[in-house]
């Protein structure tokens, strides 16, 4: 992987001057007796790759659920492009431009690869029951556009050959990529990737890294929950560390790597 592709400090600082794409204000999440997140505050500048790391149980996936709307935070707010999205249903948040993948691949296994990506086009298309049932010309045109765009995305991620196969028959590595493709189809401004490298071998992880870089350079902000530290250090611009549901540290990969609290959290009694 190409280390020199990580922007240097100056470029990063100029990015951070413009409005953050995501703002977390005192986000807290408590279920029953368990506090999964406590007072997490953070700003994610637009256009970067933001990693979220932390030991198991630190609340990373919970944080993603709070951002994408699957969970409603018990306290605090989430702002996307300056507008509050806390409490909105997930499909609305998706239409606003936030998309995601899941820790345990949640593909539509019985549908084809192409169809999975076509579902991703849902927020960017409109035909409803009547238009579909009566097969109106507008709907037919839209179907064509959906299919074309989905094929394009499959080309982009290298899965074009797999288009007619059932998604459930793909090997895990390709499934993970497919999930990213599906999320991309929604035209997100912010893409949340939850452990995309989980279960991938080294080659696949490298390809994934490349893909994420390309996504970012095309203008989409990426947030990445990952355990694979090599990948995190290689491609992220910023790293946020969570521990026991709290924000522990934040900074560039280099800063975080040597941060004493972080080291202790991962290696120490934590």
């Amino acid at each position, binding site marked *: 992987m190409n280390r020199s592709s990580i922007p240097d400090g100056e470029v990063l600082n100029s990015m951070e001057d413009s409005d953050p794409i995501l703002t977390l204000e005192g986000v807290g999440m408590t279920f029953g007796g368990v506090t999964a997140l406590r007072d997490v505050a953070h700003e994610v500048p637009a256009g970067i790759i933001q990693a979220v790391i932390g030991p198991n149980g630190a609340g990373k996936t919970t944080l993603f659920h709070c951002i*994408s709307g*699957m969970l409603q935070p018990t306290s605090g707010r989430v702002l996307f492009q300056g507008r509050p999205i806390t409490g909105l*249903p*997930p*499909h609305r948040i*998706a*239409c606003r431009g936030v*998309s*995601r993948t*899941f820790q345990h691949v*949640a*593909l*539509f*296994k*019985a*549908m*084809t690869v*192409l*169809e999975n990506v*076509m*579902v*991703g*086009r*849902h*927020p960017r*298309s409109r*035909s*409803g*029951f009547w*238009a*579909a*049932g*009566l*097969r109106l010309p507008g*709907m*037919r045109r*839209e*179907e*064509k556009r*959906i*299919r074309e765009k989905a094929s394009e995305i499959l080309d982009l991620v290298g899965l074009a050959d797999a*288009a*007619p196969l*059932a998604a*459930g*028959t793909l090997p895990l590595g390709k499934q993970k990529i497919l999930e990213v493709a*599906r*999320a991309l*189809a*929604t035209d997100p401004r912010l893409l949340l990737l939850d452990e995309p490298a989980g279960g991938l071998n080294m080659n696949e992880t490298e390809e994934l890294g490349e893909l994420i870089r390309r996504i970012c350079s095309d203008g989409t902000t990426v947030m990445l929950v990952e355990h694979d530290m090599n990948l995190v250090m290689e491609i992220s611009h910023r790293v946020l560390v969570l521990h026991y549901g709290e924000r522990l540290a934040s900074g560039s990969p280099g800063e975080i790597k040597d941060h004493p609290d972080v080291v202790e959290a991962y290696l120490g009694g934590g």
Partner: protein
Amino acid sequence: MSPADRRLFFLAVLFLAVFPQAVSSFDAVSHYVDIMVFVGIYSLVTLGLCMLMGYAGQISLAQAAFFGVGAYSSGILTVHLGWNPWAAMVAGAVVAALLAWAVGIPALRLKGHYLAMATLGFGVIVHIVFKEEGEWTGGPSGLVGIPPLTAGGWELYREIHWYYLVWGTVLVALLFCFHVIRSRVGRALMAIHEEEKAAEAMGVPTARYKVQVFVLSGVFAAVAGSFYCHYVGFLDPNSFDLMWSIRFVLMVMVGGMQSLWGALLGTALLIFAGNEWLHVFAEYEILIYGAILLGVVLFLPSGLVSLFSTHRFSRKSPGRAREPAPEE
């Protein structure tokens, strides 16, 4: 529609066109036309249920109630208030739609067992209303004196005309459903069925779509009920009870939950079997239904259609790994 489905559709039209002529020449089976009218009427119900169960992945044990809403609306409005039968049919569909919407919104927030019980409970409540409001519905002794459907002054009472009317409607409904399935909405429904959370994360308004399919299934059932009302000429609340709701589910499952053709096949099989071949076994009817349902869901979960196209269905759970999506 996929090429295979299109071929099947033309075959079906052909078969339906020829069936009455073929059958009326033989005395032994000339009453099959009458049975086919009923198959058509019930197919309308099972088509809607198939969309709900097979595609959207929800369950409803209340279809008999919607069937009854259509039937009794038609019956009551024409008998007691002298309405035009077609207007009554529309009214019945509207009432069913409103009911399905009102019940669907809270009910479809529930999942699995809870949803099944909620629809079961709702269906039984509606059945009780049919039995109790004797003033309007005739109660257990039934509603009689239902006028026939008319088309421009001309009364519809001949079996063969009903056959064409009912099956014409079924074919239109079938086309509509096929179009919906092969569209953005259809994909969204299947996505909801497979992974509801992921579908929601991809911008699919899952709650809204589930209710819409529920309403669709209710409307189909109500129209079928109106047909039933005018064809039979008499309404008895026992035609709209829980056992009928279960029969509808059975028809969909036997044929193949994820196939519209399966719904038609299952309906035809069960109605013919019930009328023709199990006449002798009247006391065993419920027992046999239970056994068939159990057998199907345990050993042939994808229904009978899966026997016809092995690559379409997977064994474990009704799934559809199928041929490449065609270009249009």
